């Protein structure tokens, strides 16, 4: 087991190097090289930008030295200062991460709480009414653009019905509320963003869960469980679910990139001051140090998420947990 974790850690090294090379390459796409043909209207602005980038990344030096410098700064998580307000990029990111993380964690929990039962009951009643309805819902879920869904929900609940606020995470009079009032205020502001961010993954995960459960239900050991005379409920939720849920653990890791990407969209629509909004603003104002930082950090987060999911899977599956020890 420990061996496996160590081995798995070693495979991360080339990936981390790869991420650094890829992002280094992306920096070099930046505008301003005199020989470039640009779509920019204002050559002067891009030349200025180039100048600042050159200072930041040492773009006038030989490529190997540039890369070495980039790598050293990555190691120290030093991404320079924002072009907009001259504050260190890491500080800006740090203050924005909690809200994004919180929303995504809540929506991951929500996704699991809803998708797993849907998947289980669809698989159990294959081809029956519930399963058919859910299959249609899954196709709908995959096809609805999240930003459109967000627009329609804002239109319905905020603009027309006035039930929920249009955007932001707290009301103007937030400070005057007591504890419960504050909590309620957060909930009222965040209910739509969380729903929107969970929506697409919900469809995907319940489909995945259904397939996994369906496969397990056709295994020999399920027949054994029936042959023992166990009631159906116990067969589904103890014998089958415990097996079917294993591969889903790795899905948590795989869904991280989608959630990070999705944050940009819903945070922009709902004006939530998280990392997604920061990314959007940085892209709009060409704040390259911030963009690079977000790119690298999101890649690392994805890598970390997959790694942790893998380890969690190993702990959850006795075949791997006790397999390595024996050999």
């Amino acid at each position, binding site marked *: 087991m420990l061996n496996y974790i160590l081995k798995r850690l070693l495979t991360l090294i080339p990936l981390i190097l790869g991420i650094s090379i890829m992002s280094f390459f992306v920096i070099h796409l930046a505008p301003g090289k005199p020989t470039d043909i640009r779509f920019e209207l204002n050559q002067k602005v891009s030349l200025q930008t180039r100048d600042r980038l050159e200072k930041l990344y040492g773009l006038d030096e030989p490529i190997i030295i540039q890369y070495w410098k980039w790598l050293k700064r990555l190691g120290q998580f030093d991404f320079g200062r924002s072009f907009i307000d001259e504050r260190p990029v890491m500080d800006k990111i740090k203050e924005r991460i909690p809200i994004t993380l919180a929303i995504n964690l809540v929506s991951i929990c929500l996704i699991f709480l809803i998708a797993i039962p849907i998947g289980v009951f669809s698989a159990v009643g294959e081809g029956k009414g519930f399963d058919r309805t859910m299959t249609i819902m899954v196709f709908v879920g995959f096809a609805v653009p999240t930003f459109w869904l967000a*627009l329609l929900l804002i239109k319905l609940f905020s603009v027309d019905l006035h039930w929920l606020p249009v955007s932001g995470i707290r009301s103007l009079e937030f400070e005057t509320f007591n504890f419960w009032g504050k909590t309620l205020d957060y909930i009222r502001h965040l209910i739509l963003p969380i729903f929107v961010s969970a929506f697409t993954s919900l469809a995907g995960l319940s489909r995945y869960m259904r397939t996994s459960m369906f496969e397990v239900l056709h295994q020999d050991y399920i027949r054994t469980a029936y042959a023992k005379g166990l009631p159906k409920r116990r067969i589904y939720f103890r014998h089958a679910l415990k097996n079917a849920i294993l591969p889903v653990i790795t899905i948590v890791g795989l869904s991280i990139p989608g959630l990070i990407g999705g944050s940009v969209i819903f945070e922009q629509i709902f004006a939530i001051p998280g990392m997604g909004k920061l990314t959007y603003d940085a892209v709009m104002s060409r704040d390259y140090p911030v963009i690079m930082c977000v790119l690298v950090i999101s890649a690392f987060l994805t890598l970390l998420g997959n790694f942790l999911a893998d380890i969690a899977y190993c702990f959850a599956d006795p075949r791997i947990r006790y397999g390595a020890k024996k050999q």
Partner: protein
Amino acid sequence: MMSRFFNHKLALCGLVIILVISAFSFSAPLICRYQPDDIDIGKYLMPPTSEHWLGTDLLGRDLFSRIAYGGRISLSVGFIAVGLMAVVGICFGALAGYYAGKIDELIMRFVDIMFCFPRFILILAIISMLGPNIFIVMAVIGLTSWMGISRLVRAEILSLKERDFVLAARASGVNDFKIIIRHLIPNSMGPVFVSATLGVAAAILLESSLSFLGLGVQPPTPSWGNILMDAKACLGVAWWLSVFPGLAIFFTVLGYNLLGEGLRDLLVPRK
């Protein structure tokens, strides 16, 4: 094969949706009474009428024409991006699968690295460097989505290359390039077709998200995404502006997803 396809209700349903929407978009000049950029300030934000079937936007432009012409853009972006994705994916996958060893190792590590980047963030970063523009959007979507296909092709080719017909071709001295092009790639197209079809849906969704954020297709060229960007500003007064373009995206994506899943049932053998 064909009869099985026509018996597959979902796939058929998807195909019909796709055909209707494509026909609608590509015959836009024939069926639209207005140009998509005909500005008529006097008739701004008109709800659907017999004159303007789907109403007008803030500048008095006909929404029906804008959706029809925007569809051409969105569908083209989807197709070209997927074309690019398929070509790159097949090339890398075929090289990795056929030559195995170091080349395989190198390409597959590259695939792993590409998978580490959240696609949307990577696309945003590249677009912020190069500037938003329809061609760049196509290229970037295509070049950040080929990894899945190359894994598929690699796996197919790894299993195909030990088969008799390939060994026979090799024994009779056919060169590697010809074997890959003539024998291996055509025989591994089933799963590629499926993911390309699903890929069109994903690409259209991505393009519309980017355009909605103002980072994709730039106005005045209409695309489903940037029509919705305009709609956001008039959310309270003009429901038609946000409902119809969204429905267009929804049905197109639904169509490709249905067709893709249907093709999967037909083309990819289950274990």
